[in-house]
């Protein structure tokens, strides 16, 4: 509730002056006080406006500052994510390289013994589960390989190994597998290869090696002896390998550069 100003207040006196037909005594002094009060109010308003403006500016700066540091953080985060992704790609590629290195022979590029062992076990368990998943195992050994190493050096031996590996690899179908099993020994897994086709396949391997291009004029074309066998469903892969090995010995005994099955 608004309080009435007292009788002698400036407001009342000004009102009285304005209502009078002729200016009463003391009008000038009242007007002077009014003007003084007006100036006070004006100064107060100026100060208030100034303070309010400063508050607004400060608030705006603060939110702009938040915005800027927020944007900076976002950019930083995006950068961290980008770099982190690249590191992960790098690790992934490294893992693939290591995986390849652990499964492949670096000289010939063929699968290595470790890889082949896993695949043989897989093939054996498949054969045990389902009829008609039989497979043939063959071992090819380069004849007189030691002589190449001894007479022409290990570099020549390595080239000979690569040449034989290439010739053997070119004799394979899509699902056949050839691994470097040991020094100059190669092991084959031929899925769906039976009694009739095994000797034909072995013979093809043997011929392809002896038809391979020579690595040097003074080094004879390599030949291989091959022992092969069919996996008997239910038997261990070691038993199959042992039989293939025996067959290989027989081929060596029979004068080399031939294929014998057991």
């Amino acid at each position, binding site marked *: 509730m608004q309080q009435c100003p007292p009788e002698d207040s400036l407001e009342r006196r000004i009102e009285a002056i304005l209502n009078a037909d002729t200016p009463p005594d003391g009008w000038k002094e009242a007007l002077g006080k009014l003007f003084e009060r007006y100036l006070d109010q004006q100064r107060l308003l100026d100060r208030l406006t100034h303070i309010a403006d400063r508050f607004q500016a400060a608030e705006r700066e603060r939110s702009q500052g938040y915005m800027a540091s927020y944007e900076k953080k976002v950019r930083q985060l995006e*950068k*961290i994510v*980008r*770099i*982190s992704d*690249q*590191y992960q790609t790098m690790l992934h590629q490294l893992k693939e390289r290591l995986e390849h290195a652990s499964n492949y022979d670096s000289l010939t590029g063929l699968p290595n013994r470790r890889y082949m062992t896993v695949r043989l076990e897989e093939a054996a368990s498949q054969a045990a589960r389902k009829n008609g998943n039989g497979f043939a195992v063959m071992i090819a050994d380069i004849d007189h390989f030691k002589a190449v190493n001894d007479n022409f050096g290990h570099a020549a031996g390595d080239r000979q190994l690569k040449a034989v590996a290439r010739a053997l690899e070119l004799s394979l179908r899509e699902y056949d597998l050839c691994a470097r099993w040991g020094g100059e020994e190669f092991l084959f897994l031929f899925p769906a290869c039976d009694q009739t086709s095994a000797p034909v396949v072995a013979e093809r391997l043997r011929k392809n090696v002896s038809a391979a291009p020579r690595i040097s004029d003074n080094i004879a074309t390599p030949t291989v002896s091959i022992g092969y066998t069919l996996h008997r469903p239910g038997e261990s892969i070691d038993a199959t390998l042992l039989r293939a090995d025996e067959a290989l010995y027989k081929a060596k005994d029979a004068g080399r550069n031939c294929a014998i099955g057991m």
Partner: protein
Amino acid sequence: MNNLEIAQTPSTPEVRADSGQGRVFMSGDSYPENPFDFFQPIIDWIDDFLKNDDRPLAFDLALIYLNTSSIRAMMDIFDRLEESHLAGRSVSVDWCYDPDNERVGELAEEFKEDCTFPFTIAPRS
């Protein structure tokens, strides 16, 4: 001011900070179990050096793998260097990498992107 010597472990890099020479060396992989514990002393050392000294500060880096927290810590370090550089301080980074692993060089380039101070990236010869 003390020097800082942190021996390399399988998950943390070797770190040597020499206040006499104004050099910081970091080399190896970085995926510390507790990134804050690992990096804070390094960042403190850098702050100390930048604050209490006006000599140049040079970084020799041969970092290889960095996990996400380590990336963040390195970006913090580079931010500090950038700030000092803009304030007129002489700072620099030399990041060398195994030429067999080009990717590490590409990653160093990513770090360099927002830095205006001297930042060289080169395969180890």
